[in-house]
């Protein structure tokens, strides 16, 4: 209100000045009366109507000034501060640790056990497997009348704790929430545009697959885990395609090897397996569905050089349905017959000046260049290098299907919950989906999350001003009898 009163005089001043000029200067003329109306019209018009006709411009300008002053003062200091929201992070890491001391329990104690967030609308940011996306769930119904401990049980029962897309918090801005508080365990890098309340990152039972590959030397499939916490028993289940369910695998179907960073599992055959680790002390279990790739990746070749290169890999499957295609630039098949994974080679006539990525050649220097549309551009020196085959080996392995995904893969029809993980049901069959490791939340140089500032709706002010301006034009046209084009 004080802002409104201080702004208003500045906006009214030119309006009053125009009124003064209008009254004193513009409308009084010296002109003969001979050709003008002398009838009773000048007296018959009612006083109010005549006054309006005389000063409608002033009244409308005055209203515009008042609306502008109100709009400016509202923008500076909103009379009704936007409501606040508190959001409970329901990511997988919130369940780490022993029951009662998990980040979720601490956050619920802060949310429900204290009056800090009284008056704030509470939401849970959780993964929705039905919609296959992160969404905001109102907490009022889920936690009504519950203490923090019971509320934690209710939430772990009702909600899916998985990896989250924190950008969904921006929806709260669009709903008009000004102050947003996120109760989370840790959000490295911080956030802009919202308040963060971090309960601390809990390190409890953890296991994550670091390597899944076919071991040619042992002729078996290897799954290496990185683990922390006590080494609890690993239960292995095997996917039965006919039943569309996991069934416990016989002990002869796998072997567990102890390692310093975690255990490794060996399987005699490819397939879809589920590794489950049940925690003690009330800790949440870990479920890791993993698809072991085919022993020999299905590879085909197109073009003389690629066919020659393919002969360097005797163990690849050159069956009828290749998943990977080696092709010379411009020689590969087009259209639906082309596999999704393609490794295109361009042969350069001149010597290339660059090197292939050492990560793809085991650290060996292999000369290569750049060619449009080619993954590998090899010159004469590169062709003469016997380590070139390493680059193709790495490319074939990199193009093979991954053993699991950390985000919902495209083409997923629905999600099937498997303990703490999911199976994405796609056209080509079930595909493992597990939450990314906690390392993926580490700071990467900038704020992890940036929310736009709260927006105030300007539409009502704009509509009011537009209506007044339209009224001004309409009255001007009515009283002057001129069209707008004549103005």
């Amino acid at each position, binding site marked *: 209100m004080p802002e409104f009163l201080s702004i208003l005089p500045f906006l009214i001043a030119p309006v009053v000045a125009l009124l003064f000029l209008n009254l004193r200067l513009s409308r009084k003329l010296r002109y*003969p009366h001979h050709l003008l109306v002398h009838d009773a019209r000048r007296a018959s018009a009612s006083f109010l109507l005549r006054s309006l006709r005389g000063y409608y411009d002033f009244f409308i300008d005055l209203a515009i000034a008042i609306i502008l002053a109100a709009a400016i003062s509202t923008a500076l200091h909103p009379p009704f501060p936007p409501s606040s929201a508190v959001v409970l992070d329901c990511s997988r890491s919130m369940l780490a640790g022993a029951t009662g001391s998990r980040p979720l329990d601490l956050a619920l104690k802060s949310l429900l056990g204290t009056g800090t967030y009284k008056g704030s609308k509470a939401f849970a940011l959780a993964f929705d497997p039905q919609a296959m996306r992160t969404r905001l769930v109102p907490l009022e119904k889920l936690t009504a009348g519950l203490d923090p401990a019971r509320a934690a049980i209710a939430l772990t029962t009702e909600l899916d704790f998985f990896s989250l897309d924190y950008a969904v918090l921006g929806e709260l801005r669009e709903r008009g929430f000004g102050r947003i508080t996120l109760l989370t365990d840790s959000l490295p890098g911080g956030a802009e545009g919202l308040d963060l309340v971090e309960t601390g990152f809990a390190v409890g039972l953890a296991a994550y697959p670091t390597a899944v590959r076919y071991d040619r030397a042992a002729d078996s499939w290897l799954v290496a885990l990185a683990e922390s916490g006590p080494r609890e028993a690993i239960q292995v289940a095997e996917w039965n395609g006919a039943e569309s369910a996991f069934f416990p695998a016989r002990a002869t179907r796998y072997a567990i090897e102890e390692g310093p960073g975690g255990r490794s599992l060996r399987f005699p055959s490819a397939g879809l397996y589920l590794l489950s680790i049940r925690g003690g002390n009330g800790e949440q279990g870990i479920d890791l569905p993993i698809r072991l790739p085919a022993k020999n990746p299905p590879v085909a070749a197109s073009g003389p050089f690629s066919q020659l290169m393919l002969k360097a890999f005797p163990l690849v499957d050159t069956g009828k349905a290749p998943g990977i295609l080696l092709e010379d630039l411009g020689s590969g098949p087009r259209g639906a017959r082309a596999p999704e994974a393609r490794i295109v080679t361009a042969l350069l006539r001149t010597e290339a000046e660059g090197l292939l990525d050492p990560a793809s050649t085991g650290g060996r220097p292999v000369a290569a260049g750049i060619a449009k549309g080619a993954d590998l551009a090899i010159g004469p020196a590169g062709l003469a290098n016997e380590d070139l085959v390493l680059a193709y080996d790495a490319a074939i392995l990199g193009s093979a299907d991954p053993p699991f995904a950390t985000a919902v893969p495209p083409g997923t029809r629905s999600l099937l919950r498997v303990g703490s993980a999911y199976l994405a049901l796609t056209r080509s069959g079930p595909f493992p989906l597990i939450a990314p490791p906690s390392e993926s939340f580490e700071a990467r140089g900038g704020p992890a999350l940036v929310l736009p500032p709260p927006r105030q709706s300007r539409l009502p002010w704009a509509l009011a001003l537009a209506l007044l301006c339209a009224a001004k034009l309409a009255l001007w046209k009515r009283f*002057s009898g001129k069209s707008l084009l004549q103005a």
Partner: protein
Amino acid sequence: MSLIDADCAALVRAFQRRTPRRPPASSQASRDPMFRRAGSSFDLKNIREYGPSDDPRRIDWKLMGRTDRLFVKEFYEEERDGVCLLVDRSASMESFGEEEASRIAASLAWMLGALGLPTSLWAFSDRILRRMDRPRGGTSPAEVLSFFSGLESGGRTELRSALASARKTSRYRRALIVSDFLESGFAPRSSPFSRSFYVRLHRDLETMDTGNSELELLDQESGARLRMPWDAAARSDYRERERGFDEDFSGAAASGRSWYRRLEPDSDRRLLYWSFLEELYA
């Protein structure tokens, strides 16, 4: 020449070159009665005996009765008919601009004189303010400027009485009236002159800063104030009256006894001057 438009001299020269009926250059011979040409006026020049080449209709029969000889009378050539120029100096001329009106009237007066036409200048409002006769015209602007110098303005427009006075006291049969013609009851057909040239100096009310609402107008002549809504109806009525006013003058002009032109402020006056001269010698 400050009050006379700069283009007037060029206009007169161009008109004299172009018009075959241009008036003869004034000379000493033309002004001396001994050398004045015989003509058809009533001014007797000479009586002489009838010759074979004379027109028998000009024989003086009374003289023949007294003398039994045939005599014919010779008269001087009739003088070219002059023009009365009446300039409105009433208060309503303020709307058009008094200085502008004086400039137009002075320019016309000077051009008439420069063409050798006898001119009688009259300034009037509700009475005759000033009169000057220039029987021989002349190219000098001094007389014209002295006529307009210090000429007062104000009062009502009394055009009818001014026209009557001019016609009564002047022998010229043509009159050029520079006025706004805002006199109730004046009819353009009722001019006592055999030919009248009306130049209406007019400023349209809609060209003024009228606004779109109430309008208060002060009549310069009567001092009356008129407050009226300046809305679409009032504008339409005003335009209708303006059209009727113009049609009155145009209708009178169509009869051949008068000529009418309306001039707005800042419009091209050379067109007016030229068309007036052409009409004057038509």
